[in-house]
């Protein structure tokens, strides 16, 4: 049965096909949860989201409610947010500061590390009840930190995070080097949903090929608003980061709040951007500074972490609730210290393109939802094609489809391994 769901690659003829039922099949969807979301390292959050000892936040990761905390000593904990007593979600707030969490059902109360502190009527239980390991909130089996990015894994065994990240680690470092003050997640989350398969969003997030067609009105807007600067060519390459991760790195006609000033932001900020770039060169050297500042990067860390360092920096992650429905969360990442002017224009620039109200993301959503609708024909029209660039010489272009082939090869490998 699963053989019908395998990708098909013919390197000699330059054909790479993906079965459309991989986007619609209920069994594939459940197998993805077992073989991918339960086995892969998944993004949990950024250190800046828990700024103080006893800070906490709650989040759904791979359908599971998670409580992410810091204790009084400042150490980080990832707990499954379900009471060991009868199962209720213990912490029901999005975020805040608290050294203890009381379940609303019977009042069992837990510390930041999940240990059971008190329970009403404790005299009615045996003497060792409160310290019984099964009576504590359960930790997520594994949590690791890469810089300020926290990842979790619902399997007790398997590769560690640095091995899993492969070559994407250096790009996570690069996006952390925008400022020597460090990076923070800005207040306000874009939380939305798309009526399409989650893999369509993974593909779309680093698809350089669709920009000119899907986003024609955005590119026209840039030319209109920024004159000659709005005419910088889209050009660059795709890089296979291994283990299913890939990135496109390229020049583009939009402003970047680091070294790429555009007239829309007004003359007042031009000198500030120039000074930031000069400081960047001193800190990182000419080449890395130029790459960091002038090149855009769209990266997908398999299976569902997107870090796009484009007209602003976004962290995006997403989880399917069904083959044709995905929940999306997106945040803005910014230097911890930057001027009020720059923070304002960074956020202004973010919303220009990105997110449900931007000039581009709604059209990506349209593309994803129309693909999903089209897959109703998959009995008769069974395959997608992602062959672009298989015949090219030299490195893949940013608008080839190498990135998707890297993603799907890993998807196929993991599902096939779980079948065996």
């Amino acid at each position, binding site marked *: 049965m699963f053989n019908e769901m395998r990708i098909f690659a013919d390197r000699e003829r330059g054909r790479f096909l993906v079965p459309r039922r991989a986007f619609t099949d209920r069994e594939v969807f459940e197998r993805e949860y077992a073989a991918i979301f339960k086995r892969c390292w998944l993004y949990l959050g950024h250190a800046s989201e828990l700024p103080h000892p006893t800070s906490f936040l709650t989040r759904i990761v791979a359908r599971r409610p998670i409580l992410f905390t810091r204790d009084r000593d400042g150490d980080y904990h990832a707990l499954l947010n379900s009471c060991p007593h009868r199962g209720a979600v213990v912490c029901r707030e999005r975020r805040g500061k608290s050294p203890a969490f009381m379940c609303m059902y019977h009042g069992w109360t837990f510390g930041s590390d999940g240990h059971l502190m008190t329970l009403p009527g404790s005299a009615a239980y045996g003497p060792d009840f409160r310290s019984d390991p099964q009576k504590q909130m359960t930790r997520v089996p594994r949590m690791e930190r890469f810089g300020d990015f926290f990842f979790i894994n619902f399997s007790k065994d398997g590769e560690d995070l640095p091995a899993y990240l492969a070559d994407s680690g250096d790009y996570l470092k690069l996006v952390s080097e925008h400022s020597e003050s460090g990076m923070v997640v800005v207040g306000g989350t874009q*939380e939305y949903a798309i009526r399409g398969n989650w893999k369509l969003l993974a593909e779309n997030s680093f698809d350089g090929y669709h920009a000119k067609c899907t986003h024609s009105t955005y590119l026209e807007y840039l030319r209109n608003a920024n004159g000659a600067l709005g005419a910088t060519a889209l050009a660059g390459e795709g890089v296979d980061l291994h283990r299913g991760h890939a990135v496109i790195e390229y020049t583009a006609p939009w402003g970047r709040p680091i070294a790429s000033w555009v007239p829309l932001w007004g003359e007042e900020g031009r000198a500030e951007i120039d000074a930031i770039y000069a400081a960047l060169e001193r800190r990182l050297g000419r080449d890395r500074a130029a790459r960091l500042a002038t090149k855009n990067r769209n990266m997908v860390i398999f299976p569902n972490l997107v870090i796009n360092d484009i007209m602003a920096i976004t962290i995006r992650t997403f989880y399917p609730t069904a083959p044709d429905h995905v929940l999306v969360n997106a945040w803005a990442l910014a230097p911890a210290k930057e001027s009020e002017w720059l923070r304002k224009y960074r*956020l202004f620039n973010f919303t220009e393109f990105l997110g449900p109200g931007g000039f581009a993301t709604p059209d990506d959503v349209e593309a994803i939802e129309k693909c999903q609708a089209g897959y109703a024909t998959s009995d008769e029209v069974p395959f997608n094609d992602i062959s672009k660039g298989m015949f090219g010489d030299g490195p893949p272009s940013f608008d080839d489809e190498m990135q998707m082939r890297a993603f799907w090869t890993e998807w196929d490998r993991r599902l096939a391994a779980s079948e065996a």
Partner: protein
Amino acid sequence: MEKHRLRLDVEELLYTEADLLDQWKLQEWLTLYSDDAHYYVPPTDIPGDDADPNTDLFYICDDRRRMQERVIRLTKPGAHSEWPRSKTRHVVGNVRVAREPNLIRARASFAVWRSKDTTSDVFVGHYLYEIIELDGLMRIRKKTSVLDMEALRPHARISIIL
């Protein structure tokens, strides 16, 4: 009496705006706004009335120039999300007004339906308006559409103007 009169005038402005949006008369819609106008949609995970577009990530953070560009974009077939155009219906109610020196503040409830293809989605929230009077005409200087929703779900796009 004075206050009732003011509310009627503001309601007339808000109902006109809703009507122009539902008829996709977007260039005309823009004429209701002052030259220094802003249009905002704050995120749903922090208190929307107090959210600051200079420090918080919004869904929409338009100055007058970008409002103009938004309208231009929405007139093109290349704005795929709105081509063919969706049907929309803005229902505005519970209008409250307060006059301040050189400024009228208004609050109102809204429900906006967007229907296209096989889906019909609703946006529920409240408007915060700052209205000024220019040459005897009311002009909107700031509109904030605060969503009274936990997230932008089950849908994904504010491709129409709320």
